[in-house]
């Protein structure tokens, strides 16, 4: 691969981790989807034995839905596992962009060439977004193709909408990580903050589903606006998607402005 610019070099550097992440997540998604056939008859009985409160802790609001294809995928993939995987992937991809260049001091090489900080910032961010798009596409296909094979009768739009919901959260957290590394130059901090925010957000949502007294706090939780059953049923929630993208844009802009103004940590 010809290393014509930062964008191509960054893509080349990230091919290997992306390959392993893609492989892992596609195996998980397709396995869970295929497992539905084997579990179909016993899922109903299983659901009855499952305490509703415990189900809520794992992000399943209505345990009786688990017998349906979308309910199964929500319970086994979208409620917890995919958000965890995609957020971790996004946060690492974000932190490893500018943060890694600065921590390794290779940023000194790049910025001693005629390359503006803004250009570096957006070339790195473009690769981050490309990674997120590839990962979401792999999730979609790893569910959609087995779904066709075993006749789960889920439409591509439903799967896309559910995957988009989880991707938007991961993009927001990954952008947070990306911008924190650009603002502070501290890779470790850019890993910790988004992970803690995601965790608190998830716990707040769980607490709210168990007790009404957390309603006010939970309005700030990302997971409050994360509704997979609805995504399978009605498709993309455009107002929520627009808010997520707007917040992502604001965080990205703050990152870019600050990166342009601060001293490098060399």
């Amino acid at each position: 691969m010809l290393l014509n610019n930062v964008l191509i070099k960054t893509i080349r550097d990230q091919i290997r981790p992306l390959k392993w992440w893609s492989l892992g997540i596609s195996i998980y998604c397709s396995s869970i989807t295929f497992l539905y056939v084997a579990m179909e008859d016993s899922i109903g009985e299983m659901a009855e034995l499952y305490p509703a409160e415990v189900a809520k802790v794992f992000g399943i609001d209505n345990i009786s839905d688990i017998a349906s294809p979308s309910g199964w995928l929500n319970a086994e993939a979208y409620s917890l596992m995919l958000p965890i995987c995609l957020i971790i992937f996004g946060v690492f991809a974000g932190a490893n962009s500018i943060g890694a260049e600065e921590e390794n001091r290779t940023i000194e090489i790049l910025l001693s060439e005629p390359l503006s900080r803004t250009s570096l910032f957006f070339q790195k961010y473009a690769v981050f977004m490309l990674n997120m798009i590839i990962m979401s596409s792999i999730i979609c296909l790893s569910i959609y193709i087995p779904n066709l094979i075993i006749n789960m009768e889920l439409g591509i739009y439903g799967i896309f909408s559910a995957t988009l919901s989880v991707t938007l959260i991961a993009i927001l957290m990954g952008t947070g990580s990306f911008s924190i590394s650009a603002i502070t130059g501290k890779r470790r901090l850019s890993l910790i903050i988004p992970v803690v925010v995601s965790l608190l957000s998830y716990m707040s949502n769980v607490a709210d589903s168990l007790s009404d007294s957390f309603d006010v706090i939970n309005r700030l939780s990302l997971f409050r606006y994360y509704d997979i059953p609805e995504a399978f049923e009605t498709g993309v929630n455009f107002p929520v998607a627009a808010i997520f993208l707007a917040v992502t844009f604001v965080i990205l802009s703050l990152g870019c402005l600050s990166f342009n103004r601060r001293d490098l940590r060399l």
Partner: protein
Amino acid sequence: MVNTTPIKITGLSKYYGKSRGIVDLNLEVLQGEILGYLGPNGAGKTTTMRILMDFIRASEGTAQIFGMDSHKDSLSIRRNIGYLSTSPVLYENLTGREFLTYCMNIRGQGETTSFIELAERLNCALDKKIDTLSHGNKQKVAIIRALAHKPKLVIMDEPTTGLDPLVQNEFESIIRSMAADGSTILFSSHVLSEVENICDRIAIIGNGKLITVEDVSDLKSKQVRIFTVTFVENVDAQAFGSIPGIKTIDVLNNQLSFEISGPIDNIIKAISKYEVSDIKIHEPDLEEIFLSYY
């Protein structure tokens, strides 16, 4: 771009919180000259260079390069600068050739004959992965990167660290020929013999403040020289004590030792009145001069 002062630093200060980086620094580097920037660790050399490269921003004062502001016009300036940091870090997973081509591509130049020529002169293996190279060979790759695009201004922070003497000589020759072609060179070094060999002027910095900027020859001429004269017969030390510039006279039998600064005409005339069997003059090297400032 035509400007007789490639670097003009005026009242430049940099503070890191409460700690001092550089304080009220004023310095000009002229076109085509090689300026050695000397100082002990933590004196402020690297801080100055990083401000020039716009990696960090000045707290006060301005730094102009080719008449442009080092911060506001940084992108235009960097088209004409070759920079080498102290202990440069390279992309270890690339070969030297891939790394250099990548850097040249960012400049919009691609693989050029100039970096291949430099690699040959510095005896640098370009097709080995950088992580397999020794420290010295990595330094060669970093030097080639800084010089391959034939910059008008070269800023280097301890460039010869890790180079063997043969390559150091070749490096000095490259730097001299670049300066002869009109490039301006600012570099810091702890190898004072190297600075003495190739620099036109040196700037000495200590505790963030510029101590002096002088021609290497002027600086040396102002320094104390040590004379040891052996006469055929014993001499009277008092006959030399009144000569201007003379310090610390020691007499041991027929051997007279003294330090002198400034012109030596009077002392030569005084010595010539006696029969001399031997004379030794110790010229201070740059290291002694450098140390005399601290």
